[in-house]
C-alpha cells in the first residue's frame, strides 16, 4: 500500500464526516466505497463493498441527533483490505460491519466533545467577544473530522489482522450496551426541548402529537400536517379574541360579511 493511498483515504475519512454536515454530496457508503475502490485501483470491489453496505442502511438516517452504524468508515476499511488480501467482497463485509458498528461510538464521542466548544462559545458571547465565539464554532470541524480520520489512519497502518484482533477483544455486552445507549440518547435532546418550549401552555398538543404517532402510527409528515391544521385553528381563534378585546363586536361583524362575500365569486 502506497503512502499516498493512505493519505488520500485518511483525507477521505476526514471529509466524509464533514460532508453530511455541510454539502451532502457523498454522504453514503456507496459513494465512499466507490472512491476507495478508485484510490486502491479496483473500482469493482469498491462498488461491490459500498453497494452491499448501502443496502443495509437504506433510508436509515441520523435523525434528532441519533447515531447510526458508520458504514462509510466500514466501506473504506472493507474495500482496502479486500483489495490488499484479494479475499473478495464477502471478507470485506465481514470486516466492514463490525468496524461500522464500533465507529458509532466515535460518532457519539464527536457529538459529545463539541460540548466543549459550545461552552466556550457561551462564555465568549457573555463577554461580548463575538469573533472568538465565531471561531470556536468552526473548531467543531476537528472533533468531527478526526473522529473518523484518526481511526482510519491507524487501521490502515496496523493491518487487518490487528483490526480483527481488536474487534474480537471488545465484549458484546459493551457493543450491545452502546447500541442501546445510542437508541435512548435522543431522549436528552427531546427533554431539553420540552424544558425550552412553553410545554405547559401547549401540553395538549404534545399529547395529541404523541397519541397520533404512538397509537395511530401516523408518520411524521402526517403529524406535521395535523399540527398545521390545529395551529391554523388556534391562530384564527387568537385573532378573533384579539378583535373582540380591541374593538368589540363591530369589527367582527364586518369580517363576517367579508367572509360571506366569497360565496358570490
Amino acid at each position, binding site marked *: 500500500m502506497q503512502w499516498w493511498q493512505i493519505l488520500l483515504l485518511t483525507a477521505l475519512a476526514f471529509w466524509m464526516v464533514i460532508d453530511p454536515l455541510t454539502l451532502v454530496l457523498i454522504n453514503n457508503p456507496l459513494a465512499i466505497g466507490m472512491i476507495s475502490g478508485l484510490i486502491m485501483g479496483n473500482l469493482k470491489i469498491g462498488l461491490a463493498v459500498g453497494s452491499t453496505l448501502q443496502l443495509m442502511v437504506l433510508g436509515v438516517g441520523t435523525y434528532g441527533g441519533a447515531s447510526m452504524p458508520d458504514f462509510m468508515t466500514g466501506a473504506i476499511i472493507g474495500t482496502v483490505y479486500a483489495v490488499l488480501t484479494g479475499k473478495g467482497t464477502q471478507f470485506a463485509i465481514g470486516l466492514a460491519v463490525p468496524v461500522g458498528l464500533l465507529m458509532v461510538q466515535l460518532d457519539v464521542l464527536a457529538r459529545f466533545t463539541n460540548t466543549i466548544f459550545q461552552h466556550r462559545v457561551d462564555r465568549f458571547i457573555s463577554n461580548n467577544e463575538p469573533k472568538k*465565539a465565531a471561531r470556536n*464554532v468552526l473548531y467543531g470541524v476537528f472533533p468531527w473530522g478526526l473522529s473518523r480520520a484518526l481511526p482510519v489512519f491507524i487501521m490502515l497502518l496496523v493491518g487487518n489482522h490487528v483490526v480483527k484482533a481488536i474487534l474480537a477483544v471488545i465484549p458484546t455486552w459493551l457493543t450491545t*450496551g*452502546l447500541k442501546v445507549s445510542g437508541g435512548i440518547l435522543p431522549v436528552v435532546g427531546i427533554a431539553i426541548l420540552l424544558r425550552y418550549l412553553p410545554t405547559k401552555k*401547549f401540553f395538549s398538543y404534545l399529547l395529541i402529537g404523541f*397519541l397520533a*404517532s404512538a397509537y395511530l402510527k401516523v408518520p411524521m*409528515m402526517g403529524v*406535521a400536517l395535523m399540527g398545521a391544521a390545529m395551529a391554523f385553528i388556534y391562530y384564527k381563534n387568537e385573532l378573533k379574541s384579539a378583535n373582540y378585546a380591541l374593538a368589540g363586536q363591530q369589527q367582527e361583524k364586518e369580517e363576517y360579511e367579508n367572509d360571506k362575500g366569497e360565496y358570490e365569486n
Partner: protein
Amino acid sequence: MTKANMKTNENGLTKKDLFRANWRWLWSSQLAWNYEKMMATGYFYTVLPFLKRWYHDDELVDMMKMQDQFFNTNAFVGGFIIGMDLAIEEKKGSAAKNTVAGIKTGLMGPLAGVGDTIFGVIISTIFGSIGAYMGLKGNPVGAFLWILVDLIVLFARFSFLPMGYYQGAKLIDSAQGKLNAVTDAAILLGVTVVGALIPTVITAKVPFVFRSGKVTLKAQSMLDQIMPSLVPVLLVLFVYWLLGKKKMTSTKIILLVMILGIVLSYFHILGA
C-alpha cells in the same frame, strides 16, 4: 423595554445578504453540533454578521445569547427559519426577541420532521437502492446519478432562506397581534411534532421474556397494553425531571443516560 431597541433597522437586506447567510448556514449548521444545544452555535454563527450590524453593546450580547439557545432542525430546510428571523429582526430589532425565539422553537420541529423525511429517507432510499443494485453489477452510473441529484439538492437549498425571508417580511407588515398569533401557532405546531418524536425517535424495547413450559410472557407486549411507547415516555419524564435539578448539567445527563443504557442492556432490561 427601552424605546431605543424599538427602532427598526431601516437598511433592508440585499439578495447578497441572504445568499451569504445561506452560505454560512450551509457550512456551520452542524459543525459544532453537540448534545447540549445541538445546532445552536450554527444558528448563532449564521446570523452573527447581522447581529453585529444591527445591535451594539448590551443589546448585542442579549441578542447573541438568544440566538445561541437550543436549536435543532433539518439542515436542508432550516434556512427558512433564519430567513423569517432576519426579516423580523430587520424591521423590529431586538423588540422582537421573544417573537424570534418563539418562531425558532416552534418551526424547528416540524421542519425537522418534514425535511428528514424528504431529504433523508426518501432521496436516499430511491437513489440508494438504484445505485446499490447497479453497483453490485459493477456499474458506477447509479452512484454518480446520486451525486448529481445531491448537487441539484444543494442548489435548491439556496431557495429556502429567501423564501422564509419574504414570508417573514409579509408577516411583519401585518398587525402586532397577528405576529403574536403566528408565533404561538408556530409553537403549537412545534410542540405537536415533538410529541410525535417521542415514539418515533427513541428506540427502547424491554426484551425480557418470561418462559415457563408452554407459556411465554413478553414484557414488551404487557407494557404495550398499558400504553404504546411507555418506556420512551418514562425516559423523557425522567430526564425532564433531572434537568430541573440544581447542579445538573446536560453533560452529566448525557453521560448518565449512556451509562444507564449500557447497564440496563447488560441486565437485559432494555434492548434496541
